[in-house]
């Protein structure tokens, strides 16, 4: 539960952040608001045309005509302003969204593994939540800026009938009170609704990813029920938000209608001469009608703003989430220069403990790898072999101890991934051809180089059957575990880096092919400082040193 202090500073921070996002829209923000103010001014012209056209009606069409023309021209202007404001507002929103999306994407791509929100939630954030700001920039901000449009209307009304203007202004006070009260209540509900929406999206994305297993375990009914619960939760939250939003807009409508009614009744009684003596104002039809025609327009800017209220609530809730994501992203470190040759890597009493974990993932590791040496890390799963490799990649936090590369501390060097060729436990396949997937390691590699490296990695049988141009989907279906691993090895071979990190490279490969793979790995490791995390004694046999890790 946040204290008042905290929530105030949170609100201020959010305002600043939103301001930064919106600024990308540039001059368009102000232009859209300006157009809407012009719309209000045109309304005055229309009211005048209508009122004085009416009063000059008995004198025949010729007398009325100029007023009718004024009225029609004003109507045209109003339409044009509304249309242009919509276009310009949309343009501002487009720019703001593009900038923000880029910021969020860069931030989320740098998040370390195993921490923070799921991919589904991040996707919702980067695409849908950024989209939510569209209404905020395109509609809410111009509407808010155009609120001052009520002022010229009030002035014009005051010119015709100060008392009627006073009535209009008077009804506004209780209205604003109602808006403020409803606004506070709505914010809480909006936050809860947003959580439910995110949860639903993430749940669904996760279960779709797991689809084969849901089918195989015949858990369809259970998982559908779980989704139904989440969907119903979303419904209730959304309804709660909407109820409050509608209540505040009902308040607005009430006061708007009331103001028209009061002005009409006042004007009528005034014209009838039935008002008490202290009312010194005497209206004629023209002025009375003018004021009556203006009355709805007085509230129009406020009604327009109220119609965008939901956009604002949604944006504010989303802003908090997006801000948190941006803040959680690690600050990009300085990029270290490429290492000139295979370095000497030392781990001194290195301990890695992830945030929120009791057990350290790696405890007190000591390691000394001479340049060009191959070191195998053996140990039970959970002993931290992968973590040791992730440390060099900058994907794991260094809690204690020191890692030095050629004598320089890793924390001083910064990001050394430019000098690392790496192959993980589970390679990621991108939708694209096999050649594309391998060629990621070194953009600009020629097909011959890719083919050579693919051959070295043992992809020969696959390629002769299907070719380098075979398209793969994101699940890599159609490839066996061993084949996928070989594509990852080909990637590692393609990049000419002085450090080679391999994480269980032969885990999914049968014994017969393992030998060929081991030979390829030994070949690739020549002239590179190599760290291999593995269980295979045969693979470890190519290493100069074998380090056994114990579980912490």
């Amino acid at each position, binding site marked *: 539960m946040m204290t008042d202090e905290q929530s105030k500073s949170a609100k201020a921070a959010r305002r600043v952040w939103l301001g930064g996002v919106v600024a990308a829209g540039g001059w368009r923000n102000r232009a859209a608001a300006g157009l809407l103010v012009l719309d209000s001014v045109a309304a005055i012209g229309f009211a005048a045309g209508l009122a004085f056209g009416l009063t000059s009606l008995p004198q025949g069409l010729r007398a009325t005509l100029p007023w009718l023309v004024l009225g029609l021209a004003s109507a045209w202007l109003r339409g044009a302003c509304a249309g242009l404001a919509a276009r310009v507002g949309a343009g501002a929103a487009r720019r703001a969204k593009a900038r923000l999306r880029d910021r969020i994407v860069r931030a989320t791509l740098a998040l370390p593994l195993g921490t923070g929100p799921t991919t589904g939630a991040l996707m919702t954030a980067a695409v849908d939540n950024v989209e939510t700001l569209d209404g905020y920039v395109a509609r809410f901000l111009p509407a808010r800026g155009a609120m001052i449009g009520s002022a010229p209307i009030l002035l014009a009304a005051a010119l015709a009938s100060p008392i009627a203007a006073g009535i209009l202004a008077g009804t506004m006070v209780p209205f604003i009170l109602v808006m403020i009260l409803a606004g506070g209540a709505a914010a809480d509900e909006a936050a809860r609704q947003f959580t439910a929406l995110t949860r*639903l999206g993430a749940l669904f994305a996760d279960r779709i990813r797991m689809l084969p297993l849901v089918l195989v*375990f015949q858990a*369809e009914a259970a998982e559908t029920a779980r989704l139904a619960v989440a969907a119903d939760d979303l*419904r209730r939250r959304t309804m709660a938000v909407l109820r409050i939003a509608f209540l505040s807009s009902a308040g607005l409508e009430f006061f708007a209608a009331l103001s028209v009614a009061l002005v009409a009744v006042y004007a009528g009684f005034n014209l009838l001469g039935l008002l008490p003596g202290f009312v010194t104002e005497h209206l004629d039809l023209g002025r009375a009608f003018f004021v009556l025609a203006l009355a709805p327009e007085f509230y129009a800017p406020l009604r327009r703003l109220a119609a965008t209220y939901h956009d604002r609530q949604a944006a504010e809730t989303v802003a908090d989430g997006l801000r948190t994501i941006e803040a959680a992203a690690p600050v990009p470190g300085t990029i270290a220069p490429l290492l000139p040759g295979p370095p000497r890597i030392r781990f001194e009493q290195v301990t890695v403990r992830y945030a929120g974990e009791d057990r350290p993932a790696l405890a007190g590791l000591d390691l000394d790898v001479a340049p060009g040496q191959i070191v195998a890390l053996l140990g039970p799963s959970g002993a931290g072999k992968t973590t040791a490799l992730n440390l060099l990649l900058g994907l794991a936090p260094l809690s204690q101890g020191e890692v030095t590369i050629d004598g320089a501390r890793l924390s001083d060097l910064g990001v050394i991934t430019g000098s690392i060729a790496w192959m993980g436990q589970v390679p990621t396949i991108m939708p694209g051809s096999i050649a594309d997937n391998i060629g990621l390691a070194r953009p600009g590699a020629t097909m011959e180089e890719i083919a050579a490296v693919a051959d070295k990695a043992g992809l020969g049988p*696959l390629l002769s059957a299907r070719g380098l141009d075979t398209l793969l989907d994101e699940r890599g279906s159609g490839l066996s575990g061993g084949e996928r691993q070989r594509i990852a090895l080909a990637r590692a071979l393609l990049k000419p880096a002085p450090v080679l990190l391999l994480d269980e490279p032969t885990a999914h490969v049968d014994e017969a092919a393992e030998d060929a793979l081991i030979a390829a790995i030994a070949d690739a490791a020549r002239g590179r400082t190599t760290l291999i995390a593995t269980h295979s004694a045969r693979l470890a046999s190519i290493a100069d040193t074998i380090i056994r890790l114990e579980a912490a």
Partner: protein
Amino acid sequence: MTSPLRTLIAAERQRQRGGLALAALCAAAVTTSSVLLLGLSGWFITGAALAGLAGPVAASAFNFMLPAVGIRLLAIVRTGGRYAERVVGHDAALRALARLRPALFRAILAAPPATALAMTVGDASMRMVQDVDAVEARFVRRSTPWAAAAAVAAGMALLVPAGTAAAGATLGLVGLVGLTILAAWSLSALGREQGRAVQQANAKLKQEYATLAAAAAELRAYGLGDWAAGRIAEHGAGLLDAQARATAWGGWSALLQGLAPGAAAIAALALSVQTTLPLAALAALGAAMTLEGLAGFIRGFEVRGSLAESEARLEAALAVPPPAAPAVSVMRHPPRIILADPAAVLSPGMIVGLTGPSGSGKTTLLERLVGLRSHGGGRIELGGLDIAGFTLALLRQCFAYAPQDAALLAGTVRDNLLLACPRGEEDAMLWQALQDAALDDRVRALPDGLDSWVGENGARLSGGERRRLGLARAYLRPAPWLLLDEPTAGLDAATEALVVSRLRARLSRLGQGALIVSHRAPPLTICDRVLSLGAGQSHDAMRNRGACGT
């Protein structure tokens, strides 16, 4: 033949018909009272002006009570009506959506495996969240035609006494607005295309992002962060372009909404030259409000494009083709497996190993057995019948499966284990399964034990731990046959030996048969038979169970 989506929507409409009817009634009341409010006000003022000018006697004779009260009443009716319409309308719509989402999920699960598995994560998320949201318009907007009709009716009721010319003009303008919308509609075969383009761009963007986010580690290793962000930005620009094209009509719609009422008022006024002043005032303001009553209707068209596209996508997802061939739904239990390639007869309770070079079809065989794949390989018989004729439900009943990639839910250890027992299970059984998978100590060491969060796809656990959790999950499913794909890959020798011996103990304890794919030797030592799949050559080697110890 109506599409499944339309059937679902129609069913929901029927379900919510009370609420929707009420919403429509309220909407009609709102527009009617708007028209009457302003019209009456205009008439009142003008009448009062004339009466006032005519002298105090006429003034006091002027019946002001009725109009004054009427005006206030109309104001209240309008406000209350708006609130009721929105609350009731949205409530009905949201209830329908909350039922549409599980129906969609169910349909995706019931689709043939090839279709279901071909759906990308980005696509699926888009459909469940955004497309279903778009369908809300189908419910909420249903009251706008009623509101528009009521506005026109009320307008005519006011205007006809004012003079047929004014009434005719207003009607003419309504017609003009209608024609404009019709033109835009046929152009919005273009609007629908644009909406389709937006949805496609959105799906592509999400898919691209999901793919690249999943590869974050790899992107870091190969310094592809900027490249990835750039690719996503490209797709993002595509989406923004499509959106700009789709919202172009919104500008015109705003123009129409701004211009129409004003033009109507001026026209009505011009045509009321011959009538009395109060009636002229009534005509002008009444005409304006009539056209304003159409505003909701006009706005409804702005979302037509994206609505049509969302519905098309949902329809595609909901279309479940009828099951093929006559389905077998009963079979002798426990079933014998007869394979054609490699030729083998596997009796219930046997432990069979499956080896072969990668790519030789071991995983394919397992996938066929659990109905994830329908082709690829020789004939398979289960309980004496060809599995090609089996319903998927019957087929899957016979097997518990632990696949090679051990996919885990983003949830707790318990959530993951309970996937295998949808009807729930005692903790004791869960711990037993964990022990059999040699994972119980690790789970006990976790801060919340069974309720510890494992991260997305088990990211908080190491590779070996994920694999063992997948094993424990498969163990929990009571089935005559256990299918294991590389159960000990990525485990060190000691853990591997433990898993293998406990597996063997479990299998003999439960009398369960097992088919174990492994390229590693230790799991094969507990097998009664080992089948070898090779390039063309298939043979099986009998292994002496006794020689492997008890």
